[in-house]
């Protein structure tokens, strides 16, 4: 694909971007050199804080003013130096010759403006087309990104579209003027796997049809193996290594790259022995319906978030619920923790039905079910120190301050943090450490059932592996029943004894993880598995690799 006679679309040479006032380091990126050829997809991979997004923002001259600034190096777009251009000159470049697609299509589109108008805006800025010509062009590009019924969708607002459709609108907006360079900053991270597969296919199709050079930023090696021509690996603001996809994924030279690749969980589950403990949790025909019809809204929409969900979890067993967003997996978890009230059905916890218990009667049972949430940045109260967060629950259940503090100190050690850190505040910890704290907080209640609601989805792969390992370790140590909610099949494959696949509120398939992965029965399960990016990737590394990653 990379013919030598062609000139690169993008050439970044020795680029250094300084952080004003200095954070944990003086420069956000240092000495970054990379290039993108026409019709080539270059993936930049790295963990959070590696500087991959800063690189893309520098190219677009969208660095946050006063915080980050280019101090040296050059950025050439089709041979044209960008670093010396004024903002006014850069405006003519942005949207016209270089365009960008962002991670979260819900927030990246203006919620109060029609989709068609937002695409049309690019034409208003950069072309002399009249209203009729612009509309025709918008409909054209909407068709080319396979948006259904463009005549209708042109007048729709972003909230009326699905996540995948929104991202298609973003891509249409970026490509409407056929830019030479497309920068895609984690464009599929916020999407479900099946949608992700479609969007990746679309990016590939567009890039081939229009010969666009694509700088594709991602943290997901599955995506890299799916889409990249060449790969650039970044760590702490520097490029660690770069090369063709085969070179980087097949034979990485640097230890860091090997570690990153090694930390990606395999899609092949290890063969875990069946768990024979007593049944801790059993749900029977659990239902949760939102938006009942009322007197004033007889035609109100009724959403069955969970319908007839029945499963069991034994002591010492991890049951995974996998499914896409809106499948009802979080609803089920919240019903079991009685954070939302189920509409009907039974939730037997150690033989006691808690589904319809009054709040007062439920109180003593509350400690038995604990949750670790997805986003460790928002699930800990920023104004209370870690110790206060951990001891609050046990003290509510009658422990004295001394006893609770002793327990908190023990647990901090158990989750791999220093007990001396109890008087520090959440912002002083990294994401992975915060998730460890969240686990300690949950364990402090001595629960019998631990629910993880996407507990590793917000974490980098290397950290993800460590937290998964910790979760598995505490399950063994305390003989806990674990309900593990995830959309990530790789994670599910590695940590779950059994999995339940949910679609639109219904459990379509359950079984031992090995069996479901090896021989999925339901059509939806098969579709879900085949959409997972990078099918072959990482599997030869084999099961159990997770355990080899050193803890903090």
């Amino acid at each position, binding site marked *: 694909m990379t013919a030598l006679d062609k000139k690169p679309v993008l050439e970044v040479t020795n680029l250094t971007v300084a952080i004003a006032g200095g954070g944990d380091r003086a420069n956000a990126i240092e000495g970054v050199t990379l290039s993108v050829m026409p019709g080539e997809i270059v993936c930049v991979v790295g963990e959070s804080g590696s500087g991959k997004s800063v690189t893309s923002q520098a190219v677009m001259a969208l660095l946050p003013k006063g915080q980050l600034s280019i101090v040296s190096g050059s950025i050439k777009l089709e041979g044209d130096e960008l670093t010396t251009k004024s903002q006014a000159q850069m405006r003519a470049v942005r949207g016209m010759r270089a365009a960008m697609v962002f991670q979260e299509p819900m*927030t*990246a589109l203006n919620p109060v403006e029609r989709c068609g108008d937002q695409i049309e805006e690019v034409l208003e800025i*950069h072309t002399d087309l009249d209203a009729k010509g612009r509309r025709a062009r918008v409909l054209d590009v909407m068709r080319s990104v396979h948006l259904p019924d463009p005549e209708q969708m042109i007048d729709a607002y972003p909230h009326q579209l699905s996540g995948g459709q929104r991202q298609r609108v973003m891509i249409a907006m970026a490509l409407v003027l056929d830019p030479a360079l497309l920068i895609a900053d984690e464009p599929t991270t916020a999407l479900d796997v099946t949608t992700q597969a479609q969007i990746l296919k679309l990016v590939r199709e567009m890039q081939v049809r229009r010969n666009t050079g694509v700088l594709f930023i991602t943290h997901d090696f599955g995506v890299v193996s799916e889409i990249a021509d060449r790969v650039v690996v970044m760590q702490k603001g520097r490029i660690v290594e770069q090369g063709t996809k085969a070179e980087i994924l097949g034979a990485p030279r640097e230890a860091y790259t090997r570690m990153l690749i090694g930390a990606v969980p395999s899609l092949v589950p290890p063969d875990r022995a069946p768990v024979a403990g007593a049944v801790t949790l059993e749900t029977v025909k659990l239902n949760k319906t939102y938006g009942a019809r009322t007197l004033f809204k007889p035609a109100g929409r009724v959403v069955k978030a969970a319908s007839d969900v029945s499963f069991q979890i034994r002591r010492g067993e991890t049951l995974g619920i996998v499914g896409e967003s809106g499948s009802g997996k979080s609803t089920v978890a919240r019903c079991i923790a009685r954070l939302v009230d189920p509409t009907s059905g039974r939730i037997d916890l150690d033989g006691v039905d808690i589904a319809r218990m009054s709040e007062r009667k439920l109180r003593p049972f509350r400690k038995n079910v604990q949750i670790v949430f997805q986003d460790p940045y928002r699930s800990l109260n920023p104004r209370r120190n870690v110790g206060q967060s951990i001891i609050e629950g046990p003290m509510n259940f009658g422990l004295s301050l001394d006893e609770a503090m002793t327990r908190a100190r023990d647990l901090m050690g158990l989750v791999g943090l220093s007990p001396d850190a109890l008087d520090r505040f959440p912002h002083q910890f990294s994401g992975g450490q915060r998730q460890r704290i969240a686990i300690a907080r949950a364990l402090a209640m001595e629960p019998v059932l631990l629910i993880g609601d996407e507990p590793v989805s917000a974490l980098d792969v290397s950290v993800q592996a460590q937290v998964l390992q910790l979760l598995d370790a505490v399950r063994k140590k305390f003989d806990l029943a674990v309900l593990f909610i995830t959309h990530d099949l790789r994670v599910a494959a590695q940590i779950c004894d059994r999995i339940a696949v949910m679609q639109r509120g219904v459990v379509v398939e359950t079984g031992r993880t090995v069996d479901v992965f090896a021989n999925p029965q339901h059509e939806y399960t098969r579709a879900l598995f085949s959409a997972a990016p990078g099918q072959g990737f990482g599997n030869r590394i084999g099961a159990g690799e997770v355990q080899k990653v050193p803890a903090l």
Partner: protein
Amino acid sequence: MFAFIIRRLIATIPVMLVVAVFVFLMLRLTPSDPAAIIAGDNATAEQVADIRGKLGLNEPILTQFFIWGAKTLRGDLGESFFFKKTVAELISDRIEPTLSLSFFTIVLAVLVAVPLGVLAAKKHGSWIDRIVMGFSVLGFSVPVFVVGYSLIYIFASELRWFPTTGYKRLHDGAGNWAYYLILPTLTLSVVYIALIARMTRTSMLEVLSEDYVRTARAKGQIERKVLFRHALRNAAVPIVTVIGLGIALLIGGVVVTESVYSIPGLGRLTVEAVLARDFPVIQAVILMFSFVYVLINLLVDLVYSILDPRIRY
């Protein structure tokens, strides 16, 4: 949307009913006897009793309420004790100055405050931002009458650019009408400029860090349009809320401003009525302002749904 408006209008009925009960009871629960007030200081007991009979004050209280309610619904607000005119006449005489003053105040406040707030948010942390915020604190804390007398002193007494006090009716010429309203409008709008500018700044600051603002810049959009087309409309809901509240609270400011500038409007009528214990007038004014308040609330809700398509009723 239409169904929503109808539903909301119907919902105003119980609200107005509650207001009406309070307004009605206000007159009956005061220690002073309205009949005695009307009769005057030198009246005999027979005269007072006679007036009581005429006013229907000897009927059971529930009957009185229904009689009063029915009259009010017909637009008969009774007769002023003090001015010896019907209340309806009084109000229609006095409403023009107040409406004019309120209208100019809100228009001026919005026209000045919103761009100021946007500018302050855009130049967040700069001296412009600090000046706007400094002015805002000042605007909140200086009482309306101080602003009023200061403006009169500078622009009317010293510079002689504007008349010190008074009001000219619209049908006597729009030029003079507007000219006489300039100082009162400036006076009253200070606090609203402060309030709305502050809200605009806060709301804009929040919105400016949103992803779609970055998207707009990535399209190559010029900064002015990024601010006004993309950011401001998204920031508008809290701003509109504050403007709505501002209109509802105008009455307090109107009372003071009209007194300072001797404008014969509803504000001064209210003050005079309260001082004279002119209950029919007080009742009518309260009823009217409550109704306006309810309508403004409805209007604000409608504006929400125009500004943000995600809000649907």
